[in-house]
């Protein structure tokens, strides 16, 4: 099968054009925007809230708001960050409402939950050492504070820049960097023990890497 590369797109071009068309009043751009973002927003929203119907409701509300205020929207925003932030806010607000309703104390910053599920059935072939290490990474990440988990997820899974992560989490860029920094430091500490034992194992079989101590 012959394959011809006719052009290379810069990542993110498509959603920006949908957004601009939508803000300019183009009729079908709204649908295109929805088609592009519905799945992503849903996956993103489910990180904060286990109630899938609530997430769907809030995505509905988000798009209805977009449509209502479309003439006042800025065509040059970073679309992904804007939509993610908006949805996150709605989820937090919904959570707060529920808290008040059930009489529990209001949500503090780190109590907004963040759920990462790890893929345990991987089909890529790994050696035992790597699989073991990744499994330990998963365990330790889940023990990190929620905000740190969130920052790591946005930075390394969604592959967003620090500006975008800060935008979505509504904190400063410095806070984001610090959160990521601290999280990784913690992971390193927790995972050092594993590393040492695997390093020793490796030493027996391969030329030894230099241990930094």
């Amino acid at each position: 099968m012959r394959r011809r590369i006719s052009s290379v797109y810069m990542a993110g071009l498509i959603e920006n054009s949908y957004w601009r068309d939508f803000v300019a009043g183009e009729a079908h751009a709204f649908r295109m925007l929805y088609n592009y973002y519905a799945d992503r927003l849903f996956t993103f929203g489910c990180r904060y809230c286990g109630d899938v119907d609530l997430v769907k409701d809030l995505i509905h509300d988000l798009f209805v708001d977009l449509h209502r205020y479309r003439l006042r929207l800025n065509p040059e925003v970073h679309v992904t960050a804007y939509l993610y932030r908006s949805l996150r806010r709605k989820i937090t607000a919904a959570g707060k409402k529920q808290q008040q309703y059930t009489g529990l104390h209001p949500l503090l910053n780190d109590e907004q939950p963040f759920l990462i599920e790890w893929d345990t059935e991987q089909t890529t072939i790994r050696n035992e050492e790597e699989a073991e290490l990744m499994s330990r990474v998963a365990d330790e990440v889940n023990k990190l504070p929620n905000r740190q988990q969130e920052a790591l997820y946005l930075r390394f899974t969604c592959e967003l820049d620090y500006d975008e992560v800060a935008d979505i989490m509504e904190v400063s860029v410095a806070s984001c960097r610090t959160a990521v920094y601290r999280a990784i430091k913690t992971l390193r500490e927790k995972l050092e023990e594993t590393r040492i034992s695997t390093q020793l194992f490796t030493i027996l079989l391969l030329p030894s890497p230099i241990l930094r101590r």
Partner: protein
Amino acid sequence: MIFFLYIPKHVINLMDKNVEDILGGEDPKRGLSGKPAGPTKKLATAILESFGQVKSVSLSRSEKEALWKRIEASTQPSKSERLVRWIGGSVAACALAVLAISLWVGKSDDDQPAIAIAAQNIHNLPLDTGDIKLNTPGNRTLTLTDDDVVHISALARTNGDSGKDSAFSTLTVPYGKRTEVVFPDGSKVWLNAGSQLTFPEVFDEDQRTVYLTGEGYFDIKHDARRPFYVYTADMLVTVLGTAFNVSSYRDDPFTAAVLLNGKIALKGLGDGNFEDRILEPGSRAVWQREDRTLQVKQEDTDEYVSWTRKQLVLKSTTLAELRVRLERIYNTQITGENDVLTGETFSGVLDLTQPLANLLNTLYDPLKYNIQQEERRIIIRRR
């Protein structure tokens, strides 16, 4: 060929603060560091890979469509907008009233036929689960297996009236399946994945009418006394007898008709606003919903009907379009980062009897991309 200057995100990661630097003890507030030390590389890789493989919940096609319907309903024009439109449309409304009255007396060309009304109510069943189903009048539902050919026999009518009061059946073909229908006159229709066809129990004496959402290949027996009509949301295809393909999926931005031999006439319906058109063999007419234009081109028609032979012929087909079609045919979601799923065009032939992962491995170099399948979802990642 034009190449934009493109900096992949993972390179930006390296220029920004990367995991290895942090593990190496660098201050996050400062800029770049030098090369990270060796032993931290394993841990850094493990962390990055773990985050690359996080499990995620996703929307099914029908959930996504249902949610869109809710949004659409909630964003209907407000009362004041509706009033303005009503005033503007009141003249047209009078004309419609006249037409509606004339419906009692005889057939009219301009209003919606009964089959369209019936079909539009039914043509929103969820399509990503279940088997091929035939819904008959009296609300009986038959479930069919993949290889059944559906023969519609000339059943005796339950009432004695002619043509107009005929009740309708609907055949639903979910994503991942396809089927063939044979009508009493010998006409055949192949329905592609994610399609629905509504048709009367018995064809009328002066016409044979069906309503299609999705994609169908039609091989119609010639009968000058009874033209064959294919209604879609925005296009009416009129045939005396011939072979053609119609594609009108709700979530595509177009409706298209491709003529292999014979002659068909096209008429705009609903949102489809174009002049009546006769199509010659070897040409394809596309109504673009966004641009609201009708394009007619002489084309090699095989590309558009190869699906009936379980093949997909591609001619400079964009990756984005190919993905949509493969998702429907295999009823599997294909996901990946933005730049993995756009940009290239393909020419060639895909064998649709192959599992989807195999096909994707021919499109994406296995040395550079990792294709992972979990049930109804495929994830494509750069290594």
